[in-house]
């Protein structure tokens, strides 16, 4: 994956901009800088102190877009800026007053110059008085490089050795089913557990770790301290799933272990799959931390749960009065998204609009991600203390992703709680999602850049060591209501969809997945997905004691 997104490389300047820079260098930008007005939420405009309303020199108009000539400071409107270049040779480059963007009057188009954007951004940074750390929040950051345990996410089996072994095919079950596909029996409303387990079983880096003996029962020190280790039990489930035996498996030992860990959730009542997912990762992490006697925070944690699922979220809180932004970073193992409920109905393939229906209109995953990274104005009743202004001010908050995990779990918040009626209900909106997801627009660099108008400026660095392209491999879907419903998992292995409904596994087509209501979507980095799809056919099935029994 190349460093950086190609669409953010500097566009080539037009001939007129190049000529201007040759003749005038940066002097025009520097003198303009004095007149730049910066707004707290990122907009920049040109504010001339002399006249209150700028007017076109040709028609005296003040409506619409007005342009400020960089050489002679005269103002023209869109209709007359060509006149200006005709009367004064060389006065081609102007600045859009309302937007602080360069405009070439001859090419009739906006042009872009990194030096100009640097001048704009410097104004933003300087504009915040007393902000010693202003440079850090917007400029380059030193990023601690993630260190993964060596070999955790690498190939699990030395392919040379595997090819020497004779591969036996399991003749009982459909031989074209991928390895590891095995139904899970419902042990009493445990569909929530089965769906999430199926996703974990087929998350490439997670699977590779356990199947390569990443968690060794013997060396697992837990056996001596206390008998419980969620990782050991997961390891057993992995062995069972990948044994080649296609008869449905009952993960009873695992369920018991998990009950011990999450005592408050130990019952046969229906549970929330997302809650289960978080508690399993937590269980794996805790044992790891105890065993190594370390107290690392989640961001740097080496345990398999965090190594695979942990990412870093960036939260920017901006004071709406002075523009001072305070940035915090929080690790996360998943991203919870609100369903996007825009008033604009999506267009279907026949290019006609679908009428929006109150409860069952379409949302898109990209729309939800947009909503997640949108700047949200916090209400006047929740004013936050601004260090710069030294008092409580109206603020706005914006989330973005600083570091992507290997496996991205997107949790769709379908359960709505109404504080008025004190009742919760499920939101039955269909969610349109892509098979290939590019997370670049939701990274901190993109989001922060966007806030300032897509300026050519280094907003964040160190993000490009992990690719932003993801492929979906599992979708946990929910049918029914809050009180009584059923979870079903859809797995995408080698580009074929499989429906995993507890013990029953079927090949299905994509339409069936799209017709369901996705609750948790699991995306893995594209390179890992492709790797996972390639090498499995060479691997042997472990010989079992009895081929025909259970």
């Amino acid at each position, binding site marked *: 994956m190349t460093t950086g997104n190609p669409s953010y490389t500097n566009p080539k300047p037009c001939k007129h901009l190049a000529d201007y820079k040759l003749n005038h260098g940066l002097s025009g930008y520097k003198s303009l800088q004095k007149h730049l007005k910066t707004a707290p939420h990122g907009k920049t405009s040109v504010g001339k102190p002399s006249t209150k*309303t700028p007017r076109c020199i040709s028609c005296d108009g003040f409506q619409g877009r007005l342009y400020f000539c960089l050489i002679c400071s005269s103002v023209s409107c869109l209709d007359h800026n060509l006149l200006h270049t005709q009367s004064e040779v060389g006065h081609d480059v102007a600045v859009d007053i309302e937007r602080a963007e360069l405009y070439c009057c001859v090419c009739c*188009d906006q042009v872009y110059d990194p030096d100009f954007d640097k001048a704009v951004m410097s104004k933003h940074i300087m504009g915040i008085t007393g902000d010693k750390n202003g440079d850090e929040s917007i400029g380059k950051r030193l990023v601690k490089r993630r260190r993964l345990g060596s070999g955790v996410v690498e190939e699990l089996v030395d392919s040379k050795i595997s090819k020497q072994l004779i591969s036996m095919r399991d003749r009982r079950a459909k031989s074209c089913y991928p390895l590891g596909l095995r139904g899970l029996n419902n042990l009493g409303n445990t569909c929530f557990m089965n769906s999430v387990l199926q996703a974990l079983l087929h998350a490439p880096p997670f699977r590779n770790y356990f199947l390569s003996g990443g968690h060794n029962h013997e060396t697992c020190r837990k056996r001596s301290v206390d008998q419980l280790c969620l990782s050991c039990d997961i390891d057993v489930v992995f062995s069972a799933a990948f044994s080649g035996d296609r008869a449905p498996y009952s993960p009873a030992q695992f369920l018991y272990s998990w009950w011990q860990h999450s005592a408050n959730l130990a019952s046969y009542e229906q549970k929330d799959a997302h809650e289960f997912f978080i508690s399993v990762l937590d269980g794996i992490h805790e044992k790891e931390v105890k065993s190594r006697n370390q107290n690392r925070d989640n961001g740097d944690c080496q345990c398999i749960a965090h190594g695979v699922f942990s990412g870093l979220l960036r939260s920017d809180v901006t004071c709406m009065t002075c523009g001072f932004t305070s940035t915090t970073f929080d690790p996360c193992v998943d991203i919870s998204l609100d369903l996007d409920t825009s008033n604009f109905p999506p267009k279907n393939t026949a290019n006609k609009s679908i009428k929006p229906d109150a409860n069952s209109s379409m949302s898109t995953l990209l729309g939800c991600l947009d909503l997640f990274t949108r700047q949200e104005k916090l209400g006047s009743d929740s004013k936050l203390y601004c260090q710069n202004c030294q008092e409580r001010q109206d603020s706005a908050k914006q989330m973005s992703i600083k570091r992507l995990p290997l496996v991205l779990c997107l949790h769709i918040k379908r359960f709505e709680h109404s504080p008025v009626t004190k009742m919760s209900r499920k939101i039955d909106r269909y969610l349109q999602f892509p098979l290939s997801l590019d997370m670049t627009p939701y990274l901190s660099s993109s989001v922060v850049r966007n806030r300032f108008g897509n300026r050519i400026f280094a907003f964040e660095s160190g993000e490009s060591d992990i690719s932003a392209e993801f492929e979906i491999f599992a979708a946990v879907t929910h049918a029914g209501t809050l009180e009584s419903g059923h979870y079903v998992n859809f797995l995408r292995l080698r580009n074929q969809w499989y429906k995993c409904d507890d013990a029953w596994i079927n090949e299905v087509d994509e339409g069936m997945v799209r017709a369901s209501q996705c609750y948790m979507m699991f995306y893995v980095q594209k390179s890992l997905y492709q790797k996972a799809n390639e090498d499995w056919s060479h691997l042997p099935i472990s010989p079992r004691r009895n081929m025909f029994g259970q």
Partner: protein
Amino acid sequence: MRASVNRPPTPDVGDTQEKQPTLEEIINIKFIESGEKERLMELLRERLIECGWKDEMKALCRAFVKKKGRNNVTVDDLVHLITPKGRASIPDSIKAELLQRIRTFLVSAAL
């Protein structure tokens, strides 16, 4: 050739420069200079983002650029493309809210 005697008088140089500002212009200038226009623009931007209008326009522009090719599109093309569609698709609730604010301003400015 005979000169026409009914030719209108040559306008003075002074006359062409001054125009009587219309009522609309006076109000507009007052609107801008008091900073109210700036505030309303901010409010409008916020509302249009919230209701998804901005995303819709962005999608339209993207589709257009995809069709024409990235290097064959100017900002002016995009402005001409989305202005009519944009104006037509603004939700009525937003129009009503802004009109109300403008009315309030006019009342206070007239005093």
